[in-house]
């Protein structure tokens, strides 16, 4: 496991367990002023920071948090992979960009 992700993973796990369930600033304002009902949530695989097949439990939130940290790190690794592919061609076929 990548050591750089130790802290983010720890923070995500702690957040999944201990984070406040109160609405955040914007959500609270929308409730107070009566326009919260106008918000529409689109379908997403981990909507509400829970895994689809585990429902809304602490374990589900922990795993969703871990998945989010990995996804976030992973998207940059994908960018790095693509940049490398275009930077260090081993053969003519890869020299596209």
């Amino acid at each position, binding site marked *: 496991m990548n050591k*750089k*992700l*130790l*802290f*983010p993973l720890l*923070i*995500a796990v*702690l*957040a*999944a367990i*201990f*984070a*406040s*369930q*109160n*609405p*955040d*600033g*914007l959500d*609270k*304002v*929308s409730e*107070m*002023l*009566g*326009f919260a009902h*106008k*918000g*529409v*949530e*689109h*379908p*997403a695989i*981990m*909507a*509400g*920071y829970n895994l689809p097949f585990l429902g809304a439990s602490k374990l589900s939130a922990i795993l*969703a*948090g871990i*998945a*989010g*940290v990995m*996804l*976030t*790190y992973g*998207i*940059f*690794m994908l*960018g*790095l992979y693509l*940049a*490398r592919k*275009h*930077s*260090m*061609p081993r*053969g*003519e076929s890869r*020299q596209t*960009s």
Partner: protein
Amino acid sequence: MHIPDGFLDPKMSGGLLGLAAGVLGYCLGQVMRAVTAVVPKQVLATVGNSLGNIQMAGKRALTKFGEEKVYQMATVAAWIFAAQMFNFPINSGTSGHLIGGVFAAVIVGPFGGTVVIATVLLIQSLFFADGGLMSLGANIINMAVIGSFVSYYVYAGLKKLIPEMASISIAAWFSVVAASLATSLEIGFSGTIGLPAVTSAMVKTHCIIGIAEAVITVVILKLYKGAKNNE
């Protein structure tokens, strides 16, 4: 402060999607320039054939420094994703969470910071339904462009006058309050709710959340640097 779909009218969210795409494209371009270098023609003229990459001459290639920079951006983004999950209670049944724009920009610069926050927002919206898809442009403008890019220059300007940690704190506070003001204007001008009502409620709440942003930014910057040294 993630705006869900439905709070903004289509003209507002569409316009901001376009604006966000433009600014983000520019920032991404600046990051690409920073992590690559033009391969000199002369070098390749002599060693190119043996390396089999003579066609790279005059093109931009990833540098060693660039690789490290991308790893750094990835790590910072992971930290911010995690930290944003941590809602802390503030007054009267309300919670707040870090944006991390100043944290990101202090470590990876204003262009990198904008790309990092926008990436976190994209993942939150796509996979977690945290922030709408149509309102993603607005959220990128508010939290990445204002919260990271603009706030970086608040930090950079203040740093010339006052100690670094104080400028980071003030910039972090500013980032949240400025982002909440932008959010209010977008919602207000969409006709969702009266502009003065939403502005005063949002800015008041976020003046408090901003204090937490300042404290957490300073703390996690220290943690981040500490973790780096341990590697």
